[in-house]
Protein backbone atom coordinates (compact mmCIF):
# COMPACT_ATOMS: atom_id res chain seq x y z
CA UNK A 1 0.00 0.00 0.00
CA UNK A 2 1.46 3.31 -1.15
CA UNK A 3 0.37 6.78 -0.10
CA UNK A 4 1.59 10.16 -1.29
CA UNK A 5 1.03 12.82 1.35
CA UNK A 6 0.98 16.25 -0.24
CA UNK A 7 1.65 18.95 2.32
CA UNK A 8 0.25 22.39 1.53
CA UNK A 9 1.96 24.76 3.96
CA UNK A 10 -0.57 27.05 5.64
CA UNK A 11 1.14 30.07 7.15
CA UNK A 12 -1.99 32.00 8.09
CA UNK A 13 -5.74 31.53 8.54
CA UNK A 14 -8.23 34.35 8.01
CA UNK A 15 -11.95 34.71 7.67
CA UNK A 16 -13.07 35.46 4.08
CA UNK A 17 -16.08 35.46 1.76
CA UNK A 18 -15.31 32.02 0.40
CA UNK A 19 -13.31 29.11 1.75
CA UNK A 20 -10.07 28.74 -0.21
CA UNK A 21 -6.31 28.43 -0.06
CA UNK A 22 -4.37 31.21 -1.78
CA UNK A 23 -0.61 31.68 -1.53
CA UNK A 24 -0.34 29.72 1.70
CA UNK A 25 -3.22 31.53 3.37
CA UNK A 26 -6.33 29.58 4.31
CA UNK A 27 -9.48 31.69 4.04
CA UNK A 28 -12.56 30.44 5.86
CA UNK A 29 -16.08 31.54 5.11
CA UNK A 30 -17.82 31.42 8.48
CA UNK A 31 -21.18 30.87 6.82
CA UNK A 32 -19.97 28.04 4.59
CA UNK A 33 -18.31 26.34 7.52
CA UNK A 34 -21.39 26.74 9.71
CA UNK A 35 -23.56 25.27 6.94
CA UNK A 36 -21.21 22.31 6.73
CA UNK A 37 -21.26 21.51 10.44
CA UNK A 38 -24.76 22.53 11.56
CA UNK A 39 -27.88 20.43 11.79
CA UNK A 40 -27.40 18.39 14.95
CA UNK A 41 -30.36 19.17 17.18
CA UNK A 42 -28.31 18.22 20.23
CA UNK A 43 -26.33 21.45 19.85
CA UNK A 44 -27.95 24.86 20.33
CA UNK A 45 -25.10 26.92 18.89
CA UNK A 46 -21.71 26.65 17.22
CA UNK A 47 -19.37 29.64 17.29
CA UNK A 48 -16.27 29.85 15.14
CA UNK A 49 -13.06 31.64 16.07
CA UNK A 50 -9.42 31.64 14.99
CA UNK A 51 -6.39 31.33 17.28
CA UNK A 52 -2.93 31.95 15.87
CA UNK A 53 0.54 31.20 17.22
CA UNK A 54 1.88 33.95 19.47
CA UNK A 55 -1.49 35.48 20.30
CA UNK A 56 -2.52 36.04 23.90
CA UNK A 57 -5.30 33.46 23.57
CA UNK A 58 -6.38 30.52 25.69
CA UNK A 59 -8.64 27.78 24.30
CA UNK A 60 -10.40 25.59 26.88
CA UNK A 61 -11.83 23.11 27.54
CA UNK A 62 -10.47 21.43 24.42
CA UNK A 63 -11.99 18.13 23.28
CA UNK A 64 -10.24 17.20 20.05
CA UNK A 65 -7.79 18.61 17.51
CA UNK A 66 -8.06 17.52 13.88
CA UNK A 67 -5.87 18.13 10.85
CA UNK A 68 -7.68 18.94 7.58
CA UNK A 69 -6.88 16.24 5.00
CA UNK A 70 -8.54 15.44 1.70
CA UNK A 71 -8.28 12.31 -0.41
CA UNK A 72 -7.26 13.35 -3.92
CA UNK A 73 -6.64 9.93 -5.47
CA UNK A 74 -7.19 6.33 -4.39
CA UNK A 75 -10.00 4.44 -2.78
CA UNK A 76 -12.15 5.74 0.03
CA UNK A 77 -12.29 9.09 1.77
CA UNK A 78 -10.98 10.66 4.97
CA UNK A 79 -12.37 9.35 8.29
CA UNK A 80 -13.89 6.12 6.95
CA UNK A 81 -16.81 4.90 9.01
CA UNK A 82 -17.78 8.41 10.06
CA UNK A 83 -17.46 10.93 7.25
CA UNK A 84 -16.76 8.55 4.37
CA UNK A 85 -17.90 5.02 3.64
CA UNK A 86 -15.84 2.19 5.07
CA UNK A 87 -13.74 1.66 1.93
CA UNK A 88 -10.11 0.85 2.63
CA UNK A 89 -8.00 4.03 2.79
CA UNK A 90 -4.24 4.54 2.85
CA UNK A 91 -3.34 4.42 -0.84
CA UNK A 92 -3.20 7.00 -3.63
CA UNK A 93 -2.83 10.68 -2.80
CA UNK A 94 -3.93 12.74 0.16
CA UNK A 95 -3.50 16.49 0.50
CA UNK A 96 -2.87 18.02 3.90
CA UNK A 97 -3.37 21.61 5.06
CA UNK A 98 -0.17 21.48 7.09
CA UNK A 99 -0.11 24.18 9.76
CA UNK A 100 -3.89 24.40 10.14
CA UNK A 101 -5.94 22.58 12.78
CA UNK A 102 -9.58 22.31 13.77
CA UNK A 103 -10.08 22.50 17.53
CA UNK A 104 -13.37 21.57 19.19
CA UNK A 105 -14.14 23.34 22.46
CA UNK A 106 -17.08 24.53 24.54
CA UNK A 107 -18.94 23.49 27.65
CA UNK A 108 -17.14 20.64 29.37
CA UNK A 109 -18.26 17.10 28.51
CA UNK A 110 -16.19 15.05 30.93
CA UNK A 111 -13.63 16.04 33.49
CA UNK A 112 -10.26 15.86 31.83
CA UNK A 113 -10.46 18.19 28.88
CA UNK A 114 -7.47 20.30 28.07
CA UNK A 115 -6.03 23.78 27.67
CA UNK A 116 -4.25 25.21 24.63
CA UNK A 117 -2.42 28.52 25.19
CA UNK A 118 -1.17 30.25 22.06
CA UNK A 119 1.62 32.10 23.90
CA UNK A 120 3.43 32.07 27.26
CA UNK A 121 4.47 29.06 29.32
CA UNK A 122 1.48 26.96 28.29
CA UNK A 123 2.35 27.39 24.61
CA UNK A 124 5.71 25.74 25.21
CA UNK A 125 3.95 22.64 26.52
CA UNK A 126 1.43 22.03 23.73
CA UNK A 127 2.14 21.26 20.07
CA UNK A 128 -1.09 23.05 19.14
CA UNK A 129 0.27 26.52 19.96
CA UNK A 130 2.24 26.21 16.72
CA UNK A 131 -0.77 25.56 14.46
CA UNK A 132 -3.27 28.08 13.12
CA UNK A 133 -6.39 26.89 14.88
CA UNK A 134 -9.95 27.12 13.66
CA UNK A 135 -11.88 26.75 16.92
CA UNK A 136 -15.49 25.57 17.08
CA UNK A 137 -17.19 26.31 20.38
CA UNK A 138 -20.23 24.04 20.66
CA UNK A 139 -23.06 24.58 23.13
CA UNK A 140 -25.21 21.53 23.93
CA UNK A 141 -28.91 21.51 24.74
CA UNK A 142 -29.77 21.39 28.44
CA UNK A 143 -29.55 17.98 30.11
CA UNK A 144 -27.84 16.33 27.12
CA UNK A 145 -26.20 13.11 28.22
CA UNK A 146 -22.41 13.20 28.24
CA UNK A 147 -21.86 10.51 25.62
CA UNK A 148 -24.35 12.20 23.27
CA UNK A 149 -22.62 15.53 23.85
CA UNK A 150 -19.23 13.98 23.05
CA UNK A 151 -20.56 12.37 19.87
CA UNK A 152 -22.21 15.57 18.65
CA UNK A 153 -19.05 17.63 19.18
CA UNK A 154 -16.83 14.92 17.68
CA UNK A 155 -18.90 14.94 14.49
CA UNK A 156 -18.74 18.75 14.28
CA UNK A 157 -14.94 18.54 14.42
CA UNK A 158 -14.71 15.83 11.77
CA UNK A 159 -17.16 17.62 9.47
CA UNK A 160 -15.33 20.93 9.89
CA UNK A 161 -11.93 19.40 9.09
CA UNK A 162 -13.36 17.59 6.07
CA UNK A 163 -15.06 20.73 4.75
CA UNK A 164 -11.98 22.92 5.22
CA UNK A 165 -9.67 20.32 3.65
CA UNK A 166 -11.69 20.47 0.41
CA UNK A 167 -10.02 23.87 -0.15
CA UNK A 168 -6.76 21.96 -0.64
CA UNK A 169 -8.09 19.43 -3.14
CA UNK A 170 -6.87 21.20 -6.27
CA UNK A 171 -3.83 22.94 -4.82
CA UNK A 172 -0.37 21.73 -5.82
CA UNK A 173 1.36 20.63 -2.62
CA UNK A 174 4.53 22.39 -1.46
CA UNK A 175 6.03 19.06 -0.45
CA UNK A 176 5.21 15.44 -1.24
CA UNK A 177 6.15 12.56 1.05
CA UNK A 178 5.77 8.97 -0.07
CA UNK A 179 5.07 6.13 2.34
CA UNK A 180 4.85 2.52 1.21
CA UNK A 181 4.33 -0.78 2.97
CA UNK A 182 4.41 -3.97 0.92
CA UNK A 183 2.26 -7.03 1.59
CA UNK A 184 3.98 -8.89 4.42
CA UNK A 185 5.72 -11.69 2.51
CA UNK A 186 6.96 -9.34 -0.24
CA UNK A 187 8.18 -6.89 2.37
CA UNK A 188 10.08 -9.59 4.23
CA UNK A 189 11.65 -10.83 0.99
CA UNK A 190 12.77 -7.35 0.00
CA UNK A 191 15.07 -6.86 2.99
CA UNK A 192 16.07 -10.38 4.05
CA UNK A 193 18.98 -9.21 6.17
CA UNK A 194 17.29 -6.47 8.15
CA UNK A 195 15.55 -7.01 11.48
CA UNK A 196 11.77 -7.05 11.17
CA UNK A 197 10.12 -4.36 13.26
CA UNK A 198 6.45 -3.54 13.90
CA UNK A 199 4.57 -1.00 15.93
CA UNK A 200 2.12 -2.09 18.62
CA UNK A 201 -0.33 0.82 18.75
CA UNK A 202 -2.39 0.80 21.96
CA UNK A 203 -5.70 2.64 21.66
CA UNK A 204 -7.53 4.17 24.61
CA UNK A 205 -10.78 2.20 25.02
CA UNK A 206 -11.74 2.37 28.69
CA UNK A 207 -15.23 3.57 27.80
CA UNK A 208 -17.17 6.38 29.52
CA UNK A 209 -15.73 9.02 27.16
CA UNK A 210 -12.38 7.23 26.79
CA UNK A 211 -13.00 5.86 23.31
CA UNK A 212 -11.16 5.41 20.04
CA UNK A 213 -12.63 4.34 16.73
CA UNK A 214 -11.21 2.26 13.87
CA UNK A 215 -13.13 2.51 10.58
CA UNK A 216 -16.15 3.49 12.67
CA UNK A 217 -15.82 0.54 15.08
CA UNK A 218 -15.51 1.26 18.78
CA UNK A 219 -12.04 -0.19 19.40
CA UNK A 220 -13.05 -1.74 22.73
CA UNK A 221 -14.96 -4.26 20.63
CA UNK A 222 -12.02 -5.38 18.50
CA UNK A 223 -9.46 -8.06 19.07
CA UNK A 224 -5.96 -6.88 18.13
CA UNK A 225 -5.46 -6.79 14.40
CA UNK A 226 -3.17 -5.56 11.65
CA UNK A 227 -3.39 -2.28 9.80
CA UNK A 228 -1.22 -0.71 7.12
CA UNK A 229 0.50 2.36 8.57
CA UNK A 230 -0.78 4.55 5.74
CA UNK A 231 -4.40 3.76 6.62
CA UNK A 232 -3.82 5.66 9.86
CA UNK A 233 -2.68 8.71 7.85
CA UNK A 234 -6.09 8.82 6.14
CA UNK A 235 -8.06 8.86 9.38
CA UNK A 236 -8.80 5.16 9.84
CA UNK A 237 -8.21 5.73 13.57
CA UNK A 238 -9.79 8.69 15.32
CA UNK A 239 -10.38 9.97 18.81
CA UNK A 240 -13.65 9.98 20.73
CA UNK A 241 -11.69 10.63 23.87
CA UNK A 242 -12.67 13.49 26.16
CA UNK A 243 -10.23 12.60 28.92
CA UNK A 244 -6.49 12.56 29.67
CA UNK A 245 -5.77 15.86 27.95
CA UNK A 246 -2.00 15.58 28.22
CA UNK A 247 -1.50 12.01 27.04
CA UNK A 248 -4.46 11.02 24.92
CA UNK A 249 -4.01 11.04 21.18
CA UNK A 250 -6.17 13.71 19.59
CA UNK A 251 -7.21 12.78 16.04
CA UNK A 252 -4.47 15.14 14.81
CA UNK A 253 -1.84 12.96 16.52
CA UNK A 254 -3.23 9.75 15.07
CA UNK A 255 -3.02 11.28 11.59
CA UNK A 256 0.56 12.40 12.26
CA UNK A 257 1.77 9.54 14.44
CA UNK A 258 5.52 10.24 14.84
CA UNK A 259 6.31 6.60 15.67
CA UNK A 260 4.91 5.55 12.29
CA UNK A 261 6.62 8.41 10.43
CA UNK A 262 9.96 7.78 12.15
CA UNK A 263 9.77 4.02 11.57
CA UNK A 264 9.36 4.79 7.86
CA UNK A 265 12.35 7.16 8.02
CA UNK A 266 14.94 4.36 8.51
CA UNK A 267 12.86 1.59 6.88
CA UNK A 268 14.97 -0.44 4.47
CA UNK A 269 18.14 1.04 5.96
CA UNK A 270 18.42 -0.05 9.60
CA UNK A 271 15.39 -2.33 9.83
CA UNK A 272 12.36 -3.56 7.95
CA UNK A 273 9.18 -1.82 9.20
CA UNK A 274 6.59 -4.46 8.34
CA UNK A 275 3.39 -2.97 9.75
CA UNK A 276 1.21 -1.95 12.66
CA UNK A 277 -0.64 -4.06 15.23
CA UNK A 278 -3.51 -2.15 16.84
CA UNK A 279 -4.79 -3.17 20.24
CA UNK A 280 -7.03 -1.78 22.98
CA UNK A 281 -7.06 -0.94 26.71
CA UNK A 282 -10.29 -2.33 28.15
CA UNK A 283 -11.58 -2.31 31.71
CA UNK A 284 -12.13 -6.04 32.21
CA UNK A 285 -9.11 -8.10 33.23
CA UNK A 286 -10.09 -10.88 30.79
CA UNK A 287 -10.03 -8.33 27.96
CA UNK A 288 -6.57 -7.17 28.99
CA UNK A 289 -5.35 -10.77 29.09
CA UNK A 290 -6.95 -11.65 25.75
CA UNK A 291 -5.71 -8.56 23.92
CA UNK A 292 -2.13 -8.86 25.18
CA UNK A 293 -2.13 -12.58 24.35
CA UNK A 294 -3.24 -11.59 20.88
CA UNK A 295 -0.58 -8.89 20.30
CA UNK A 296 2.11 -11.39 21.35
CA UNK A 297 0.59 -14.02 19.06
CA UNK A 298 0.52 -11.61 16.11
CA UNK A 299 4.09 -10.48 16.79
CA UNK A 300 5.20 -14.10 16.72
CA UNK A 301 3.06 -14.87 13.66
CA UNK A 302 4.71 -11.98 11.76
CA UNK A 303 8.16 -13.31 12.67
CA UNK A 304 9.17 -10.01 14.25
CA UNK A 305 12.53 -9.25 15.80
CA UNK A 306 11.47 -6.13 17.67
CA UNK A 307 8.46 -3.92 18.41
CA UNK A 308 7.79 -0.42 19.67
CA UNK A 309 4.73 -0.30 21.96
CA UNK A 310 2.98 2.98 22.75
CA UNK A 311 0.42 3.50 25.51
CA UNK A 312 -2.47 5.96 25.53
CA UNK A 313 -3.68 7.42 28.81
CA UNK A 314 -2.49 6.22 32.19
CA UNK A 315 -3.43 4.21 35.28
CA UNK A 316 -4.85 0.78 34.49
CA UNK A 317 -3.59 0.94 30.85
CA UNK A 318 -0.14 0.74 32.43
CA UNK A 319 -1.07 -2.91 33.02
CA UNK A 320 -1.97 -3.41 29.36
CA UNK A 321 1.40 -1.90 28.49
CA UNK A 322 3.24 -4.24 30.85
CA UNK A 323 1.26 -7.30 29.71
CA UNK A 324 2.09 -6.51 26.07
CA UNK A 325 5.74 -6.01 26.98
CA UNK A 326 6.00 -9.15 29.08
CA UNK A 327 4.23 -11.46 26.65
CA UNK A 328 5.97 -10.15 23.51
CA UNK A 329 9.37 -10.30 25.25
CA UNK A 330 8.63 -13.90 26.26
CA UNK A 331 8.40 -14.73 22.53
CA UNK A 332 12.03 -13.68 22.15
CA UNK A 333 11.08 -10.34 20.56
CA UNK A 334 12.72 -7.12 21.73
CA UNK A 335 10.43 -4.35 23.03
CA UNK A 336 10.72 -0.61 23.51
CA UNK A 337 7.90 1.12 25.39
CA UNK A 338 6.69 4.70 25.00
CA UNK A 339 4.66 6.08 27.91
CA UNK A 340 4.49 9.06 30.25
CA UNK A 341 4.69 9.36 34.02
CA UNK A 342 2.52 10.20 37.02
CA UNK A 343 5.40 10.39 39.44
CA UNK A 344 3.95 12.95 41.88
CA UNK A 345 4.56 16.67 41.91
CA UNK A 346 8.16 16.17 43.00
CA UNK A 347 8.71 13.33 40.54
CA UNK A 348 9.75 10.97 43.37
CA UNK A 349 6.88 8.45 43.24
CA UNK A 350 6.58 5.32 41.14
CA UNK A 351 5.93 6.52 37.59
CA UNK A 352 3.56 3.81 36.40
CA UNK A 353 0.85 1.83 38.18
CA UNK A 354 2.41 -1.42 37.04
CA UNK A 355 5.91 -2.64 36.28
CA UNK A 356 7.77 -5.65 34.95
CA UNK A 357 11.41 -6.65 34.65
CA UNK A 358 11.08 -7.08 30.90
CA UNK A 359 10.33 -3.36 30.56
CA UNK A 360 14.01 -2.46 30.31
CA UNK A 361 13.82 0.01 27.43
CA UNK A 362 11.30 2.78 28.09
CA UNK A 363 10.88 6.25 26.61
CA UNK A 364 8.89 8.81 28.62
CA UNK A 365 6.85 11.76 27.46
CA UNK A 366 7.36 13.56 30.79
CA UNK A 367 5.82 13.79 34.26
CA UNK A 368 2.16 14.84 34.05
CA UNK A 369 2.00 15.72 37.77
CA UNK A 370 4.50 18.56 37.55
CA UNK A 371 2.91 21.86 38.61
CA UNK A 372 3.02 24.69 36.10
CA UNK A 373 1.88 28.31 36.06
CA UNK A 374 -0.07 29.56 33.09
CA UNK A 375 -0.25 33.36 32.82
CA UNK A 376 -3.59 35.08 32.14
CA UNK A 377 -4.45 35.52 28.47
CA UNK A 378 -6.17 38.57 26.96
CA UNK A 379 -8.65 36.42 25.08
CA UNK A 380 -10.39 33.22 26.10
CA UNK A 381 -12.13 30.99 23.57
CA UNK A 382 -14.48 28.76 25.58
CA UNK A 383 -14.65 28.85 29.37
CA UNK A 384 -12.06 29.30 32.14
CA UNK A 385 -14.24 27.98 34.97
CA UNK A 386 -13.50 24.23 34.54
CA UNK A 387 -9.85 24.97 35.51
CA UNK A 388 -10.52 23.92 39.12
CA UNK A 389 -12.26 20.67 38.22
CA UNK A 390 -10.45 19.22 35.20
CA UNK A 391 -7.93 16.51 36.05
CA UNK A 392 -4.75 18.26 37.10
CA UNK A 393 -6.63 21.25 38.44
CA UNK A 394 -7.59 21.79 42.08
CA UNK A 395 -9.52 24.25 44.24
CA UNK A 396 -7.94 27.61 43.53
CA UNK A 397 -6.26 26.60 40.26
CA UNK A 398 -8.01 29.46 38.52
CA UNK A 399 -6.90 32.73 40.11
CA UNK A 400 -8.93 35.96 40.09
CA UNK A 401 -6.61 37.52 37.48
CA UNK A 402 -7.26 34.65 35.03
CA UNK A 403 -3.93 32.91 35.52
CA UNK A 404 -3.93 29.18 36.26
CA UNK A 405 -1.76 27.02 38.49
CA UNK A 406 -2.26 23.33 37.80
CA UNK A 407 -0.56 20.07 37.01
CA UNK A 408 0.86 19.66 33.52
CA UNK A 409 -1.87 17.13 32.74
CA UNK A 410 -4.29 20.00 32.00
CA UNK A 411 -2.37 20.93 28.84
CA UNK A 412 -3.55 19.27 25.63
CA UNK A 413 -0.88 16.98 24.18
CA UNK A 414 1.79 17.90 26.77
CA UNK A 415 3.04 14.40 27.58
CA UNK A 416 2.17 12.62 24.33
CA UNK A 417 2.94 8.91 24.51
CA UNK A 418 3.55 8.68 20.78
CA UNK A 419 6.20 11.38 20.93
CA UNK A 420 4.08 14.15 19.46
CA UNK A 421 5.71 16.76 21.71
CA UNK A 422 9.15 17.74 22.96
CA UNK A 423 9.07 16.63 26.61
CA UNK A 424 11.04 13.66 27.83
CA UNK A 425 13.54 12.67 30.50
CA UNK A 426 16.77 10.78 30.63
CA UNK A 427 18.50 8.75 33.29
CA UNK A 428 22.15 9.35 34.13
Amino acid at each position, binding site marked *: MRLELGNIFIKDVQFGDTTKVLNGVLYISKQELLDAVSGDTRLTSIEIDIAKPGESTRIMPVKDVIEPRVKVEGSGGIFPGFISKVDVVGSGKTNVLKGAAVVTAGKIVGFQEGIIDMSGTGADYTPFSKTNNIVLVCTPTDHLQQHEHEEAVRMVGLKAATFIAEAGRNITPDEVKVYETLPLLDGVKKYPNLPKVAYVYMLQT*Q*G*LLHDTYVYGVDAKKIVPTLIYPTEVMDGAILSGNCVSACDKNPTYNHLNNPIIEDLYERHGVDYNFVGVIITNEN*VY*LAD*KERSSNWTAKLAEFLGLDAVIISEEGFG*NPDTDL*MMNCKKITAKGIKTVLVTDEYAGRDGASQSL*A*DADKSADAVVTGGNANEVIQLPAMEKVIGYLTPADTIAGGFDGSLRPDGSIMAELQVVTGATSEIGFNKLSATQY
Partner: protein
Amino acid sequence: MVKEIERAGLPVVHICTVVPISLTVGANRIVPAIAIPHPLGNPALSYEDEKLLRRNIVLKALKALQTDVHEQTVFDK
Protein backbone atom coordinates in the same frame (compact mmCIF):
# COMPACT_ATOMS: atom_id res chain seq x y z
CA MET B 1 -3.26 1.11 52.22
CA VAL B 2 -3.35 -2.69 51.98
CA LYS B 3 0.28 -2.92 53.03
CA GLU B 4 0.06 -0.37 55.83
CA ILE B 5 -2.95 -2.07 57.46
CA GLU B 6 -1.21 -5.44 57.22
CA ARG B 7 1.90 -3.92 58.73
CA ALA B 8 -0.26 -2.99 61.75
CA GLY B 9 -1.09 -6.69 62.11
CA LEU B 10 -4.54 -6.95 60.53
CA PRO B 11 -5.10 -9.31 57.60
CA VAL B 12 -6.39 -7.58 54.46
CA VAL B 13 -8.20 -8.76 51.36
CA HIS B 14 -7.73 -6.57 48.30
CA ILE B 15 -10.76 -6.73 46.00
CA CYS B 16 -9.36 -5.44 42.76
CA THR B 17 -10.09 -5.60 39.03
CA VAL B 18 -6.54 -5.35 37.76
CA VAL B 19 -4.99 -8.24 39.64
CA PRO B 20 -1.50 -7.70 38.15
CA ILE B 21 -1.32 -4.23 39.74
CA SER B 22 -2.39 -5.69 43.08
CA LEU B 23 0.38 -8.28 42.73
CA THR B 24 2.89 -5.57 41.82
CA VAL B 25 2.06 -3.44 44.87
CA GLY B 26 2.34 -6.49 47.12
CA ALA B 27 -1.16 -7.45 48.33
CA ASN B 28 -1.23 -10.94 49.86
CA ARG B 29 -4.91 -11.88 49.56
CA ILE B 30 -6.46 -10.77 46.28
CA VAL B 31 -10.07 -11.27 45.16
CA PRO B 32 -10.70 -10.30 41.52
CA ALA B 33 -13.40 -7.66 40.98
CA ILE B 34 -15.67 -7.21 37.94
CA ALA B 35 -14.43 -4.19 35.97
CA ILE B 36 -12.67 -0.92 36.62
CA PRO B 37 -15.73 1.38 36.35
CA HIS B 38 -17.85 -1.03 38.45
CA PRO B 39 -15.60 -3.26 40.59
CA LEU B 40 -18.34 -4.65 42.83
CA GLY B 41 -21.29 -4.80 40.46
CA ASN B 42 -22.35 -5.31 36.89
CA PRO B 43 -24.91 -2.91 35.43
CA ALA B 44 -25.57 -5.37 32.59
CA LEU B 45 -27.23 -7.82 34.99
CA SER B 46 -30.73 -7.75 36.44
CA TYR B 47 -31.10 -6.42 39.99
CA GLU B 48 -31.46 -9.95 41.40
CA ASP B 49 -28.48 -11.40 39.53
CA GLU B 50 -26.33 -8.41 40.43
CA LYS B 51 -27.19 -8.79 44.12
CA LEU B 52 -26.12 -12.43 43.95
CA LEU B 53 -22.89 -11.46 42.19
CA ARG B 54 -22.12 -8.86 44.85
CA ARG B 55 -22.91 -11.24 47.69
CA ASN B 56 -20.57 -13.86 46.20
CA ILE B 57 -17.69 -11.39 45.98
CA VAL B 58 -18.14 -10.43 49.64
CA LEU B 59 -18.41 -14.07 50.72
CA LYS B 60 -15.27 -14.94 48.77
CA ALA B 61 -13.45 -12.03 50.41
CA LEU B 62 -14.57 -13.12 53.89
CA LYS B 63 -13.36 -16.64 53.17
CA ALA B 64 -10.02 -15.30 51.91
CA LEU B 65 -9.66 -13.30 55.11
CA GLN B 66 -9.87 -16.53 57.12
CA THR B 67 -7.46 -18.45 54.91
CA ASP B 68 -3.81 -18.81 55.90
CA VAL B 69 -1.52 -17.71 53.08
CA HIS B 70 2.25 -18.04 52.78
CA GLU B 71 2.66 -16.22 49.46
CA GLN B 72 0.66 -13.76 47.37
CA THR B 73 -2.59 -15.57 46.65
CA VAL B 74 -5.32 -14.81 44.12
CA PHE B 75 -8.70 -16.24 45.12
CA ASP B 76 -10.09 -16.67 41.62
CA LYS B 77 -11.86 -20.01 41.98
